[in-house]
């Protein structure tokens, strides 16, 4: 999803005008006024079609089929089921719908907390490392470490640390700090939500940090100097200069983080395996389980389509709201 948004922007802005400029006249005679830009867009369009649209349409078609293991060998022959898969998914009184709704709310809460915390840590860290000091480069590099590690290796390490009896977390919390009366479970039961959130924030805040650091470098130093001369304190400078200047960066950052986190599959999958505890049953894992573990691919596709619609809606509302606000500001 998120990559697609970026793709389209770069394609639209760069590819067309660059190629069109030098040979414009000759080609205009040949293809007419507007053919060339489209021609130049064609490869990208074809790629988009193959990489994104075909699988998407396939998925949508599957959502209307009764696709179980009986038909997987030749899924075209699976019987049509109309809106049955959707009905089952949205029947919130019955177990399937109830479980889906539950995992939807879990995912919403998880996403809001994870994105919020990642952003907060990212913005704090980038502001504090903005001024040069001894060891800044090293510190910044250390911040980027989680972002550079392979997800699997990182998350599996976390899962070792979260083990109840042998893990580092309980060793510190219980044995050393005596904060808990008993060793809590982190990978099963209700605490699993917090374990998942911890890993997710750990994993995604460096991206926020990187993006925001880049954003900060674009703010002219003179603004701060002038503000300081006028007697503005650090907090006021952050509120009046830093945050407003970062708005365009934040718009993209929050959207991208939201989409990544909402769809995150790797973290819960590596942390909990194929069946996540209920408290941490993210929607991506839930759909995976419906399609691949219980072999009900039609049902899983229907849930995916619903998820896609929801994310499209959220993205549209978000972009609309933020664009309008920017329009008002200008």
């Amino acid at each position, binding site marked *: 999803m998120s990559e697609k948004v970026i793709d389209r922007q770069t394609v639209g802005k760069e590819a067309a005008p660059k190629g069109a400029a030098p040979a414009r006249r000759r080609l205009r005679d040949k293809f007419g006024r507007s053919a060339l830009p489209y021609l130049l867009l064609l490869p990208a369009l074809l790629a988009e079609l193959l990489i994104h649209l075909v699988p998407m349409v396939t998925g949508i078609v599957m959502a209307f089929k009764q696709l179980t293991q*009986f038909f*997987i060998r030749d899924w075209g022959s699976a019987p049509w089921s109309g809106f049955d898969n959707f009905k089952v998914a949205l029947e919130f009184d019955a177990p399937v719908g109830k479980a889906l709704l539950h995992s939807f709310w879990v995912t919403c809460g998880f996403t809001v907390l994870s994105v919020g915390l990642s952003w907060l840590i990212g913005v704090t860290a980038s502001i504090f490392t903005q001024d040069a000091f001894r060891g800044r480069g090293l510190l910044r590099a250390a911040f980027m470490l989680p972002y550079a590690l392979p997800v699997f290796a990182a998350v599996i390490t976390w899962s070792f640390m979260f083990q*109840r009896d042998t893990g580092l977390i309980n060793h510190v919390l219980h044995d050393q700090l005596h904060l808990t009366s008993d060793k809590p479970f982190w990978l099963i039961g209700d605490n699993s939500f917090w374990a998942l959130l911890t890993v997710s924030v750990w994993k995604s805040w460096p991206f926020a940090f990187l993006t925001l650091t880049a954003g900060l470098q674009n703010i002219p130093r003179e603004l701060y100097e002038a503000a300081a001369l006028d007697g503005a304190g650090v907090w006021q400078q952050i509120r009046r200069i830093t945050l407003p200047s970062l708005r365009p960066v934040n718009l993209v950052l929050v959207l991208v983080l939201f989409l990544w986190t909402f769809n995150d599959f790797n973290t819960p999958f590596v942390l909990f395996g194929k069946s996540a*505890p209920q408290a941490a049953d993210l929607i991506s894992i839930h759909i995976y389980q419906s399609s691949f573990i219980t*072999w009900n691919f039609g049902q899983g596709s229907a849930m995916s389509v619903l998820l896609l619609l929801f994310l499209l809606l959220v993205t549209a509302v978000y972009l609309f709201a933020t664009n309008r606000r920017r329009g008002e500001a200008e």
Partner: protein
Amino acid sequence: MRTHRISAALALTAAIVLTASACGGGDSGGGSNSSPKTLTYWASNQGSSLENDKQVLEPELKKFEQQTGIKVNLEVIPWSDLLNRILAATASGQGPDVLNIGNTWSASLQATGALLPFDQATFDKIGGKDRFLESAIASAGAKGKDPAAVPLYSMAYGLYYNKKLFQAAGIANPPATWEELVQDGKKLTSGDKYGIAIEGGNVSENVHNVFTLGMQHGTGFFDASGKPTFDSPEAVAAVKQYVDFIANDKIAAPGNAEYAANQSVTDFATGKAAMLMWQSAGANLKSHGMNPDDYGVVPVPAPAGATGDKATTSMVAGINMAVFKNTKNLDGALNFVKFMTSDEEQKTLNGTYGSLPSVKAAQSDAAFSTPELQTLAGVLQKSAAPLPQVPTESQFETLIGTAVKNLLASAAAGKPVTEATVKDELSKAQQQMPAS
């Protein structure tokens, strides 16, 4: 240059047409012998690592190549990926020629229609059906249909017990009934040492154990017509009995609820738990430094005086070998199956892996006469039942295994587990079964 481009275009078109026909081709993918010199073999992970499997299998494959001139390309696939890889191969039609499947998936994979049925004629080509153990054949496909695979390695559950710990607790004999097991377990539990270790985070282990208990209570989790009966009183009793190890009897450590990487075997090997229900644990225990003299193996307990299905003490565990229907080397594939299930290879491979041969003639070999394997072979012959051979088996495994995992997690966190909570969880699992 020009011909180059044309051939490239042709190749691309061909690829597209092929993919398209593979997607919608239906029954077009029958076996043939158009590529008789090579075979692709997907082996499951049996040894201590994927590398170890390659070391075990490569010399045997060389032997086969010398005998037949057919080169076998080996790929060892970890269990966590195997089912999805098989599904992908089924959907795309681009699979191996010969593959390993977990025997509990037999009926589910059979229903996809992608595997070659072993009818009388096919069995004749690999040396006949009668060579195999009946219980192992029963786990190779739905009743009344030709098996979709043949058994390759066989295993069964046994109760492993630590002799020293039993002696120290003043227990003369290993338990034969569940009442005895719980009593002994309580005697053996003190401090951070527990009576029994279970693998509560492992969905498959959970379902295997509650299946055995279910049979003893009189349910196979499906009725005669193949409909799930997950929340029957018998099923509730069976699942509750298992969860109670942590919830009520407290003879298993609460931490066992999150075990999913064979930690229970480690706990048993290091004396942290005195009993373990496991299939062919010998090789694994040895790698943890436990001497075979230190433990004994008996059948898993059954209710006193039980007979027939109620005397079931294990599921039929094992690995089957299947042939993809659309193989391009049908004769070679069957030849390879014949080779791998030959008496000699059965002795070699099962001897190395610590499993039991699935052909009768190989069972008498000295390699399988250790007390452990003798016990397990007895279980397999007398008191093992295959998991329900219904098309929805793989769903059953996941849903019930997960339900038990959730219940164990609640129990471990100190929440009360009653018959009502068990029934609730099982009903939920049943309602998530797709209509078939």
